[in-house]
């Protein structure tokens, strides 16, 4: 690519962008061409929606243990019943009965044919507060008879409903990723910007710092940092600390992107023009340089979120991150740590599947955004 290359034309038929299409519009059009990224955007949107409405979506309180339903297998949700009263719409799950093997005394659950537990959409539930503020008494799925229990994703070792725990864990894990990126972004912009804008000695020091951090193995360091966190801290403080720890490494990549862009842009004509016009340094940086960086930054941020999610999940899984009663995907996966429980209850893997889906989708979105960040190329 040379400076003299003519600006290529956008040739999206139908969407033919006119001369006034904004940068963001062009970016969006380009992003839409990446079908996989678009689909991933939908998935991530749904996951964040689940995180947002956790109290409404989770059928039961996530900490509620049922000693009589330990390792209960998942019950499929059915919509129609066909009995003596004919075929009709009635959402329900099939009831399970606990049986004990007379010889080995092992308990197992068998489907109780004909016995159903009717459920209702938007049914009445025990009153709760959405986001701890708005009082509500309806949930997406609730048992018709109060007090009945159903487990769409089974239960864990203490008989806690996996679905409810998963939904609450989603809130913690997904927001932790975002918060971590927030901190990384501030650090990355600040240090990357300083490095790229001023160059020289500051640049040298910051670059060496980044190289240093990148050359250290992250998990052992995170482990050491997380192990230093007292176990008896309240969950919110733990959450904050873990966020800081995982973002400690995340900022380096952002700083590199920002620096590279700043270096490239410092001598662009519009920046020189702004400087010659007598704009203050602040105005040059915030009014002229940052806006044209924004799209690249968004792409890098999206690619950083999955790293944070994996980091948090790994740490919590090892027992160094969030501690139960807190719920996150990593905490949930702790239940699947030993071979006995996963062969007995493979549904404990479901949080893992969700981690993969979330990370994969975020990666695809990041990829799409990176391609779209420069809508004028190719």
């Amino acid at each position, binding site marked *: 690519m040379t400076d003299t290359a003519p600006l290529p034309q956008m040739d999206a038929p139908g969407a033919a962008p006119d001369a006034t299409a904004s940068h963001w519009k062009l970016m969006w059009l380009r992003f839409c061409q990446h079908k996989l990224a678009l689909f991933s955007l939908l998935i991530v949107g749904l996951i964040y929606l689940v995180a947002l409405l956790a109290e409404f979506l989770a059928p039961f309180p996530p900490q509620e243990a049922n000693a009589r339903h330990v390792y209960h297998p998942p019950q499929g949700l059915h919509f129609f019943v066909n009995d003596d009263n004919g075929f009709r719409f009635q959402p329900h799950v099939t009831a399970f009965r606990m049986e004990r093997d007379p010889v080995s005394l092992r308990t197992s659950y068998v489907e109780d044919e004909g016995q159903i537990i009717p459920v209702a959409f938007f049914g009445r539930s025990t009153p709760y507060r959405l986001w701890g503020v708005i009082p509500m008494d309806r949930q997406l799925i609730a048992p018709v008879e109060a007090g009945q229990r159903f487990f769409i994703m089974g239960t864990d070792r203490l008989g806690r409903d996996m679905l409810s725990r998963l939904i609450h864990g989603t809130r913690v894990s997904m927001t932790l990723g975002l918060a971590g990126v927030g901190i990384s972004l501030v650090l990355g912009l600040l240090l990357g910007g300083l490095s790229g804008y001023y160059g020289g000695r500051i640049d040298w020091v910051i670059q060496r710092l980044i190289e*240093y951090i990148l050359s250290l193995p992250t998990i052992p360091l995170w482990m050491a940092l997380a*192990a230093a966190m007292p176990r008896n801290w309240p969950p919110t403080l733990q959450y904050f600390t873990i966020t800081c720890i995982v973002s400690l490494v995340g900022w380096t990549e952002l700083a590199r992107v920002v620096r590279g862009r700043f270096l490239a842009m410092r001598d662009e004509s519009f920046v020189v023009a702004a400087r010659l016009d007598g704009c203050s340094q602040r105005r040059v940086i915030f009014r002229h340089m940052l806006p044209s960086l924004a799209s690249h930054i968004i792409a890098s941020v999206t690619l950083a979120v999955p790293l944070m999610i994996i980091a948090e999940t790994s740490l919590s899984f*090892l027992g160094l991150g969030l501690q139960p009663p807190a719920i996150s995907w990593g905490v949930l996966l702790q239940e699947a740590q030993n071979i006995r429980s996963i062969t007995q209850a493979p549904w404990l893997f479901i949080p893992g599947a969700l981690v993969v889906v979330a990370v994969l989708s975020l990666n695809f979105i990041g990829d799409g955004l990176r391609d779209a960040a420069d809508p004028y190329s190719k």
Partner: protein
Amino acid sequence: MLAFIVRRLLAAIPFMFLVSITVFILIQLPPGDFATSYAASLSAAGEYVDQNTIAELRARYGLNDPLIVQYFRWIGGILMGDFGYSFQWNSPVSELIGERMGLTVLLTFATVIFTWAVALPLGIYAAVHKYSIGDYIFTFIGFIGLAIPNFLLALVMMYFAVVWFGQDVSGLFSPEFRNAPWSWARMVDLGKHLIIPILVLGTASTAGMMRVMRANLLDQLHQPYVVTARAKGLSEARLLTRYPIRIALNPFVSTIGWLLPTLVSGEIITSIILSLPTAGPLLLQALLAQDYYLSGAFLLLLCMMTVVGTLISDILLVLLDPRIRYS
């Protein structure tokens, strides 16, 4: 050449110094020192804790000295080969970490070799047959490999090994070899047990490397020199191996610098799950018990490993590319 290597080695010294300071700060971070955690573990075991004994411990290990003195005592000891004393195990740290670090190094380098052996041909194939079915399949697998955290992959593999083959894949040795002296049979046994950890560890980095190789080679394939060579009638296989692949290998070798930190990280977490007798599980225990000489030694050696890895990759790069050698 020799001058370059010497210069590079010298440059690594301040780096290692920084690493040691970082590790020292990290192990000093938890509130209290190991005397307090020793006292706590004693009282948890129901034993009587004598305050005088604790004070004596502090005095004997110089825990009351300023941090800077403690640091130099620690690092000085390490330079002499004395890694300190593990409280949890009641034995010198160097006795505990020897074989475990050896196995970690073995596992990590075996994974590097695996990664290269798989990623190189696949990356070349994907680049030469761009947008073919094979390319899409490898790219897709690559994305999934990148998205699955190591520990999850380890869990899933463990699950399938038990469900399908009825086999417990944890550990690195079969029971009969666990405490046996090194022999040929033990090596073979180790080799068999290494397969799953290597697969677990190598998947993500193989995926990453494959994408690097594919992108590098694609950059080269449309260069005029390739067209010239082809026009002169060079066979396709010879042409590829002679020129573009050699050049595309360059960034490939330099990425070992970032490959090692990731592999070491992954190795720790994987071996904790598969309970491999490597550094991981012991490091975790040491961190949780604040057995700080032990955790410090592990952290230091693991970080050093990546520093050495970067060093090796730099030297390889010089060997591979005459342009770097002579500029």
